[in-house]
């Protein structure tokens, strides 16, 4: 259970988040859509402590991030939160000096003192799941964008996270590769993985999400089931956005 309570965040004078809060039930898939600059990515980054915020709180099980959470002083707390919350980046951010296999097993070995054998065995299973079983010895730069993103997802899953945050995971990909990645994500959702997904894929939001949030101007202007948001949007911003996105 993840509880996000009234988050405020600004970069200098620029207010990016103006009081956002909702809770995420286990197994739920929350899709966050909305126009660029609406605070979607910043919001996601606040949830696992990559960005500090000025007001509000984020509770993740027994751990709570507050505006007082300090990157250095509270390093242990942040580490505990991040073990529970995986993150998948738009730009994949695989470690280029490591092979696919090494990318997966590095963190479990370092963080959980897992044995190399156990980690490798788990990695093989996960790579199979994302369709990358044959590429375990490849270097990231030898892979296509879609393949890299699927490895990145497997890497996040290696930590057995309670929730995985996806920050526009398919924005840097062409439609074919994006399709492969979204398929993997849909399978994850089906398997009961809790997910928060910032996405431009209206189709994913419509078909996979449990709930859809429309972020605009730093606010969660409208949220509800996909059918509700896409079928009968209430808010003007939502309507305008959906029109522009061609989803209506």
């Amino acid at each position, binding site marked *: 259970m993840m509880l996000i309570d009234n988050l405020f965040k600004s970069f200098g004078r620029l207010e990016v988040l103006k009081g956002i809060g909702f809770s995420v039930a286990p197994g739920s898939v929350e899709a966050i859509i909305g126009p660029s600059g609406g605070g979607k990515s910043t919001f996601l980054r606040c949830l696992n402590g990559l960005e500090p915020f000025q007001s509000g709180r984020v509770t993740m099980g027994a751990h709570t991030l507050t505006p007082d959470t300090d990157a250095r002083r509270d390093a242990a707390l942040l*580490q505990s939160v991040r073990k529970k*919350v995986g993150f998948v980046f738009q730009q994949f*951010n695989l470690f*280029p*000096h490591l092979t696919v296999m090494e990318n997966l097993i590095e963190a479990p070995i370092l963080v959980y003192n897992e044995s190399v054998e156990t980690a490798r065995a788990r990695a093989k299973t996960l790579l199979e799941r994302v369709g990358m079983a044959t590429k375990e010895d490849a270097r990231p730069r030898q892979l296509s964008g879609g393949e890299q993103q699927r490895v990145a997802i497997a890497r996040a899953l290696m930590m057995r996270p309670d929730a995985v945050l996806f920050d526009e995971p398919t924005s840097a990909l062409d439609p074919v590769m994006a399709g492969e990645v979204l398929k993997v994500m849909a399978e994850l959702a089906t398997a009961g993985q809790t997910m928060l997904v910032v996405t431009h894929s209206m189709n994913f939001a419509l078909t996979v999400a449990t709930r859809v949030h429309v972020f605009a101007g730093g606010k969660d202007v409208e949220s509800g089931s996909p059918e509700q948001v896409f079928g009968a949007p209430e808010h003007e911003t939502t309507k305008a956005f959906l029109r522009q996105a061609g989803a209506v």
Partner: protein
Amino acid sequence: MYDPHRLGLEATRCRSLAAFRALGVFLLLLFIPSQARAEKLAEVRARGALRWCGDQEGGGPYIYPLESDPSQVIGFEVELAAKLAAYLSLEPQFIQGQWDKLGDLVRVQKCDVVLNGYELTPERSEAFEASIPYYVYGLQLLVRAAGPVTTWAALKSNPGGSKAKIGVLTGSAAGTKMAEFCGADNAFCELVAYDGGTDALREVETGRLTATLQDTPTASFYAARFPGLRPVDAPVGRGYYGLYVAKGETVFRDALNEALIHLVRNGELEAVLRRYRLWDAAQSELRTIAEMGRFYGLESAVRAPVEKSDGAAVGLVHTEARKHGLQVFRACGRILLQSAGLTILLAFLSFPLAMLLGLLVAVGRLYGPRWLRFPLAAYVELLRGTPLMLQLYFMFFVLPEVGISMPAFSTGVLGLAINYSAYESEIYRAGLQAIPAGQLEAALSLGMSRAQAVRRIIVPQAFRMVIPPIVNDFIALFKDTSVVSVVTLVELTKRFSILSMSTQATLELMVMTAALYLLMSYPMALLAQRLERRLEAAS
């Protein structure tokens, strides 16, 4: 005012007058009370060795490498040191130092006594304890035998239409004398300062200098090797070489004085000086000075019966002809190679240390706690903003004052490492900053601690990027090892200077030295290329 036109016959009279005046000042200074460090003599006796320092780069006849085995030194001062040590029942131990730093060596107790053509001057006698003189020197003007200048006066008359150029040793009494002679702003002639005595001799022979003023030992010792030179008139001026020990070590100084008096009285000093063609009429003054030993409270030494040494008749030291080509290679190859070994050792010990220190500094500045950033930035700026030579000097000659004393080799390794760590840290910093922020975020988001992320994810990537500039620095450090000669280490460049001074085979030695440096640095470049290719293939 110094008047060159009166330099002829009248000069002799002036000279002895000036000499007595100088001696008077000197004697006066000896009686200025100073804090006695009586235990020094006991220390030296306990060690059983008399550590005496000089610079063999100064060349003959003082201290210079033996032709047949350049790792050994000879010279009249080497023999004097041996005799002084023997009188005190000690073993002589030569410490190589840079000539202008010999006083520092004595001050920080890296050496017991300076014995290397140090003139007795009021300034030095104030800073150190000076002995009685062991040699009376004059200043000899030398010109090109085939040149137009044959008199002191002609130096000012611009025979070639341009001002005469006169070479002198940096910071020597000859330099002071010539500066006076040439007038303010080099009105009558131009002074050119050299660090090595024989450089100026060679320049006069080739005609690039009009003349050079040299201490009489250098002038007479090198007469055979520079047949193209001719002395002008008799030596001018007169001064004294003395031993210097650290301030307050009066008991030790008196022991050395006693030994000197003994060597003068039994004729052994004369024998040594004669062997190096250094005994001239002026040296008879040494006997008078020895008799004056009673003024130093050394009555017993002056009166003690001595047996005349029969060494006085020993023949001349044979100085070989100038070597050329392969002869130089055979004679000096081995010792150059040994010095190259020291260069390699210094480079290979200090650079890994510099890399490690540099990495720690860079990581500390970028990822460390905030309070650490300013001190680290200051560390970098201080070290790359000041000369390596000064840093080594500080470590070797100043730190001992506060009780931190390290051997020369450790000082060299540590000094180079610390200096280069500043440059390496900047390279690492650039490399670390070039890693996209997403890499650190990805590592953190996987639950790694900051330290784990930096160590396992950021540093390995940065390291691959910085290999070329780091190898570049390693090659630069190879050559910077030459600066450690300031802390008495004789590495390849210093060895080259010493050998070229004593053999005059500069060209051959230069080729050999350059070849050795290249042989050391080029394989490094190749290795780096290979490493780079392998890492590139792996990423």
